């Protein structure tokens, strides 16, 4: 398979885990509002950001993802009351774990994006892509295929 966005050279692959209630809807709204963001960001739907196991993030990096975004409801607005608080707590641990594993923590981010925040979603997508693009391809953890 060829790389995405070949014309402009290398484009990073970003995996975004979006909770079904807020951030996935926010991404829908970004689309409905026709807000452009880099195509290299792809979304995996999860019921809640609290469902995202650190294992999934590591697996994404192993499989060659250049960046990972976890997006959930705003603190206090979680559809499941408290799920995103766990996400928030895990976020810091995750950053440290990645650093320990030699992955630049700038490749990983947690964002709170509600269902009405289409522009915020697009902005988040653009920001993480730009940051990861600056960091270059993930060579730290990817399995050699």
């Amino acid at each position, binding site marked *: *398979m*060829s*790389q*995405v*966005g*070949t*014309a402009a050279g290398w484009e990073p*692959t970003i*995996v975004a885990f979006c909770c079904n*209630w807020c951030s*996935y*809807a926010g*991404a*829908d709204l*970004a*689309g*409905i509002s*026709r*807000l*452009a*963001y880099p*195509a*290299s960001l*792809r*979304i*995996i*739907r*999860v*019921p*809640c950001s*609290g*469902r*995202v*196991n*650190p*294992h*999934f993030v590591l*697996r*994404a990096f192993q*499989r*060659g*993802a250049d960046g990972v975004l976890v997006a959930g409801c705003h603190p*206090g*607005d979680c*559809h*499941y*009351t*408290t*799920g995103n608080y*766990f996400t928030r707590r*895990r976020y810091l641990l995750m950053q440290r774990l990645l650093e320990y594993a030699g992955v630049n923590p700038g490749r990983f981010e947690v964002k709170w994006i509600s269902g009405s925040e289409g522009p915020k979603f*697009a902005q988040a997508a653009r920001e993480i892509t730009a940051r990861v693009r600056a960091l270059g391809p993930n060579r730290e953890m990817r399995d050699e295929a």
Partner: protein
Amino acid sequence: MRRIGVFVCWCGANIGGKVNVPAVVEAARTFPNVVYAEDNKYTCSEPGQAAIRSKVTELKLDRVVVASCSPRMHELTFQKTVETVGVNPFLFEMANIREHCSWCTPDKAAATEKAIALVRTAVAKAVMNDPLQPFPIPVTPRALVIGGGIAGIQAALDVADTGIETVLVERDPSIGGVMAQLDKTFPTLDCSACILTPKMVDLARHPKVRLMSYAEVEEVKGFIGNFQVKVRRKARYVDLKNCKGCGDCAAVCPVKVPSEYEAGLGPRTAIYRPFPQAVPGAFTIDKAERPPCVRTCPAGVNAQGYVALVSQGKFKEALAVEKRQNPFPSICGRVCNHPCETECNRGQVDVPVSICAIKRFIADTVYADGSEEPVLPASAKDERVAVVGSGPAGLACAHSLALEGYPVTVFEALPKPGGMLRYGIPEYRLPKAVLDREIDQVRQLGVEIQTNAALGKDFSLTDLKARGYAAVFIATGAHKGQSMGVPGEDATGCVDGITFLRDVGLGKPMDLDGRVVVVGGGNTAVDAARSALRLGARDVIILYRRTRAEMPANSWEVDEAVHEGVKLHLLAAPVAVTVRNGRVAGLKCIRMELGEPDASGRRRPVPIAGSEFDLPAEYVVTAVSQSPDTGFADGVLELRRGGIIAANPVTLQTSVPGVFAGGDAVKGPATVVEAIADGNRAANAIGLYLRAEAPEASAAALADQPQTGKPFTIPKDVAKVPRAVMPTLELSRRRRNFTEVELGLDAEAAMAEAARCLNCGICCECRECERACEPKCIDHSMQDETETIEVGSIIVATGFKPMDPVAYGEYGYRRYPDVITSLEFERMCGASGPTSGQILRPSTGKPPHTVLFIQCVGSRDEGKRGHQYCSKTCCMYTAKHAELVMDRVPGATTYVCYMDVRTPGKGYEEFYRRTSEEYGARYIRGRVAKVQPNGDGLRVRVEDTLAGRPLDVQVDLVVLATAMEPQADSMDLARVLKVGYDADGFFTEAHPKLRPVETNTGGIFLAGTCQGPKDIPETVAQASAAAVKAVALLSKDKLLASPIVSYVNETLCAGDFFCQPICPYGAIEEKELAERIAGRPVTRKVASVNTGLCQGCGACTVACRSGAINLKGYTNEQLLAEVDAVCLK
């Protein structure tokens, strides 16, 4: 090997315009397990769905992937499609190549590439999908409606009419909400009460409705079909069932507070019914936390109670309230240091209420006219009690015990009873006749007082026991004057203050000719100085080592002393008494300055070296301190430092069982009211002791009651009123006699002063209502109760509150009486309202000639003071108000300052046209910048933006159309219910167009203004809609719950339960597993998921270290497969 079919949708040009659909189909065919792929113009259309159905059948597909729009749009559609041809809906998967791809990716190649990746991911997940079955859950066929305004009433009636039980919880004492406060309703001008009250009555009488008024929802557990709701039923203090609503109680209630129903324009009583047509019609007592006066009084005397009664002219009732805790109101009304006044909230408005003077007024007045109602003691008891000391502590104790029926004997060392009241406080402050009168009242209860009987001299504690006293209370006071500790103190003419005052009290002849120096700064010093003046002293000086601010004496006493001519010599201390011929000739003193603060927080006086000076004097009175004379303890009673008796601070029991002690003998020199408090406490403790209650029970019974009830906030618009001035004896008439100085308030002054009370406790607990209530349904000891009710569905109808426009300082609300809110105006129009339906200017009580309405106050304001939204009803009700003005005030002119007039409703535009054209209301397009007083009225500054000219409009009344706001605690309720709310605090509906009455939480529906501003027709429509939704749910026997729940692989589960605390629903339970390991039976604990409670968030799966718990539909395996596929390049 799976058999997957992939269907890629063009969605017309929506997808096809950006994504090369054939290329996606082509790619999909190469994915593992895909046996078929095709494209469709519109997959969601009937031909598209037919294609899926036929291919599933034809090719025996076992899984289907559709690549089209968001699953939030059509997942359900396609799940149903595949189900019709025998494929489990959970084997269906969707790739979102529209919202997440074609619509957000400008570049065609990139969009196609992304679409392929998304389809690959969906296929990868589909491979791992398992068939899942929704499982049935039972439904509790009962509905809960929260809020009893028109929305709640309508919804409850609609549900109940279908035969389903309905519980309505309303937090106010009556249902009706804001609609009950309205006069007329637009656009038909129906009388609001006429259309609402029949519905209220219907609701109360409905056999399927249970009305819980004055109750609040505290906690909600469970899930759709099965909620457990904890409701707090607030104490009403009135028995709902037996109250006939006669109103006899309110007629006697002395407390007036602003009525919520009348929007603060009129008063209500503390026991009240919000309005005559209230449902339920029973009364309610409104209690706040204990007011500061009561809280501060050492004896807990109910000051608010007697003050409130005085304000109503009920003096003998006031005296009865007073005497519940204090047998000596006439005495305390003269000599109390009244800490209650220091704490009085009125002090934050202007000056504290003169509580003490009111107290004195009550006692003096009622005693004088002899109208006091006698209090009868309880039936006589056998155990005799001895009280040693007849000061305020001893007598208060004797009084309380006598009321309980105990025979009491009081022993007094001095010739007459009263202790320090008689021998420490001079006649001009406390006439002996006043003292004797209240001591006689104690005697009349059967208390025997033996004078000239001193403990330790005339009898001993053992004697008392021998004489058959079952308990003893020692309250011998602190009668020993302390010396200054300087040379020469024993000279003639030098005496300690206690002795001096006692001699004055005993009436020993004294003629003081010359200068008297009193050393000390306490009340004894001041009393001695003022007495000396009356005994003929030429010159009286108080010598005190600190400054006036530090003098412990009551400041008003010091003021009077100075007024009478006593001189203060501050920052000086005696070094020696100058003695000439064995007689005092003066004091040698030294000047002091204030140094660092000492333990008491007062700055310590430090002598200034070399500053000695002589102060000639004929007499010296030393009033530096006093201590108890407890020689009688004699090793039997345990003493503390300074000779005070050791007693338990709660029970007052000494080291000898059955012997109690209190007052100054235990505390050291303190106040009269503290002594009375100790006497009361001792009486209680002795009663408990004699009834042989367990010590812990006694301690609990005697402990201070915790503060309960809602906090009181001082109203912002209390007018300042000067405090009553106590009339005093002319200065010229105070010489050479001990006539009482303070003359007492008259009835008019006392009642006016009492009316200054803010009623901080709201109900003053005077219990007049109790006496007035014939069916005896008032119970002041009622407590809140909680109850858990089970319901299947909840309708939230908590309504709105009008915004307080005080943030708009330029409009002067609260500062100018003629600026009112539209709800206040509405009450003014009500025929039963505070003005009986007349439109009047609050400042003058006369009708206004010109009225100006300001629209959008707090609405459409993105500054920090208001709300961005339009409140939707104000344009119409303002038009209505303008018409009402012109109907009721002939010739009146009305102005309406607006930004836009919005009339989207049936008959609304017609109504507005009529207001402006037929009635002639003058509409000015402009938002008002400022309202200011001008002459007799108000001047309003506004730009007519159509003419581009600033205008000044002189008007008599300004009405602010204030915004609708969510209830102040709406967000708290949202959290309890787990429903969403917007930035303003309105609850959010599941979909703004298609699911307007549902929330995102199953089984919970919305009705009325809690969801957003709306008028009555819209509110009622939404209420009926919510009712239908609730009925649709409750009429089912069972519900099908989502199969997306967690499950446990019991073999892997280590039983460490990390998953348990993380679950927000408490859905993870412990389960005992019996196994045989190596032939032996073993049990171990594993986690087990209660699928009724599990909502499928999956948080538990991350907490599990062994990977034993997994989420159906989103298993670790499914998600990892997606990750792998999405990363594939």
